[in-house]
């Protein structure tokens, strides 16, 4: 365990740092690549997407992903805690079934269905992303809390801890790696779905891609795609790092 731990960790360090550097360079430096895109695509009048700044789009993209993920963690986390308490156990099977079945629904279809219900704009995107992110969060919350060994809970009871204290000081810390895995799945899916949300009127990094596809401007497509891909890789690498810390911390 300790012998093999070093090499992958160095690889991860590299992936996160390299990704972060690449992301920042792409977001800030894209305008200075204009001559490059002009050379690559000589037939395009406008080789650089300039309707919105990439900084603005990146921040909006992250805000949409962050808000929906946060809402999903709060709602899904509470639901997961509720159904693992004695008073909520009756709802557990239903919640798990909905979480499993819901994840077979393609995210893009859920996003599209939000429009007939709520209209165009960032709000339907936010709702659709939140709903979709709920599913892996709930699933892993329940699985994580379920995986806490019964003897540990008995010991906590024996020490005279109250149920709230047991939840926050024993169950949630022990379940943290599994919960984090669910959050990671949710966030990564949301980074991709948020990009597609440009088709329902949310201004995200998908906007240059959609505009480029509709107007046959390949330069726009590449600019948006590079940044959103870098963003996803960086966030995933960040979660990898976080998971490593958490595992070491919970094994202490």
């Amino acid at each position, binding site marked *: 365990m300790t012998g093999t731990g070093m090499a992958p960790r160095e*690889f991860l360090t590299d992936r996160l740092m390299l990704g972060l550097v690449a992301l920042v360079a792409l977001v800030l430096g894209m305008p200075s690549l204009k001559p490059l895109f002009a050379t690559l695509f000589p037939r395009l009048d406008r080789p650089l997407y300039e309707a919105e700044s990439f900084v603005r789009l990146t921040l909006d993209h992250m805000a949409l992903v962050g808000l929906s993920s946060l809402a999903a963690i709060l709602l899904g986390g509470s639901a997961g805690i509720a159904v693992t308490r004695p008073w909520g156990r009756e709802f557990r099977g239903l919640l798990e079934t909905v979480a499993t079945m819901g994840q*077979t629904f393609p995210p893009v279809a859920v996003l599209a269905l939000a429009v007939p219900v709520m209209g165009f704009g960032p709000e339907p995107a936010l709702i659709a992303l939140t709903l979709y992110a709920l599913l892996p969060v709930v699933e892993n919350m329940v699985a994580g809390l379920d995986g806490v060994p019964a003897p540990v809970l008995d010991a906590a009871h024996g020490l005279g801890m109250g149920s709230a204290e047991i939840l926050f000081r024993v169950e949630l810390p022990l379940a943290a790696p599994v919960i984090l895995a669910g959050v990671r799945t949710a966030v990564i899916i949301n980074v991709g779905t948020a990009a597609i949300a440009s088709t329902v009127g949310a201004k995200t990094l998908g906007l240059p891609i959609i505009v480029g596809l509709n107007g046959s401007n*390949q330069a726009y497509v*590449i600019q948006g795609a590079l940044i959103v891909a870098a963003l996803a890789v960086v966030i995933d690498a960040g979660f990898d790092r976080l998971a490593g810390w958490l595992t070491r911390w919970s094994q202490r």
Partner: protein
Amino acid sequence: MTSRPTLHTSLHNRVALLMALAVAVAAMALPFLGFAPNRLLSGRPVSLWAAVQGLDGVAALIPGLVLLATPFLRQTRIWLGLTIAAGGLFAAGLAWLAGAHAATLAQGASAAARTSFASGFWVMAAAGLLTAVDAARRLGLGAVGRMTAGGAVAGLVALQLASGHLDALSILKEYANRREVFADAVLRHATLVAAALVPTLLVGVPLGIAAHRVQAVGRAVFPLLNVVQTVPSIALFGLLMAPLAALGAMLPGSGISGVGPLPAVIALTLYSLLPIVRNTAVGLDGVPAPVREAARGMGLTPRQIFLRVDLPLALPVFLSGLRITVVQAVGLAAVAALIGAGGLGAIMFQGLFANALDLVLLGAVPVILLAVAADALLSIGIAAATHRVGVLPGRSAP
């Protein structure tokens, strides 16, 4: 505290109570249908009560009474069975009511008039189905029983669709306008998924076997496939466009292009590889060494051991990888419409770009149905494969 002890003692199913409350609130307060003179104007709401006409309309709501009674009755096996039937019949009955009332509304209106499902319909139908799902779980219904019940509800709705009873609803008017386009889109969608599966299996299965046998292969392949899986689909489609377009320009007449089905199939394959390679390797890793040794002791050749021992034992895990792959590919193929690959996504995005909401439904609902159907079919396959493995001595079904 003790003001209403009877209510407490007579409450037997709190899940059904929550769903019954949702049905009651939706029936009272939410619009059941929306009726618009044409598809550009926003509709006026039609309540459930306005949509119920005549005795057959009332009859369609009778299963709803069972749903309202369920929370307060003892959850015997018979009653749970009745609840499952009632939940399914209630949802199908709501669709029937909607179709009947849409036809009535269409009689006095122009051909451009639109009747669509509104929030009340969705809430009530979902509550009915969820009550049934929960009752099936309480009853301990197995995979086959659940599929049969789900199939029966789907059959009831399909029957209404086939008989033309729902034709006056806007989503079906939209369908009638583009019957051929729709059939082509479904076929195209399925073809894209199938076309991606061929290279995925041809490359993924040998790669998974290699990763199982040689650890270094897994160490090299999995981080790479994980990164691919992380990249958003729309970005991967976009990034494949330029190189393919350049390649097509270099090889005129080759048919290679940056848009259309080719980049879609390449991207779908790249995404599909991870679950296939991973589950092939994990499935083979899970074959117990004593079983292999016993086979060797019986004089089986390595080839026979692989075909008769390794493959059947690894099959359930492999099939769950295939399930993830197919369900994921159905969704990704919808996104591929953005790069001109066609399929149901094309109808969906056409609706989104033209603000035609019924068109969005016509594209998105079948995508969901395809994904759910693929999931259900492969689940049956997994259950069958697991059952076969479970018969082997020394290994219990997971």
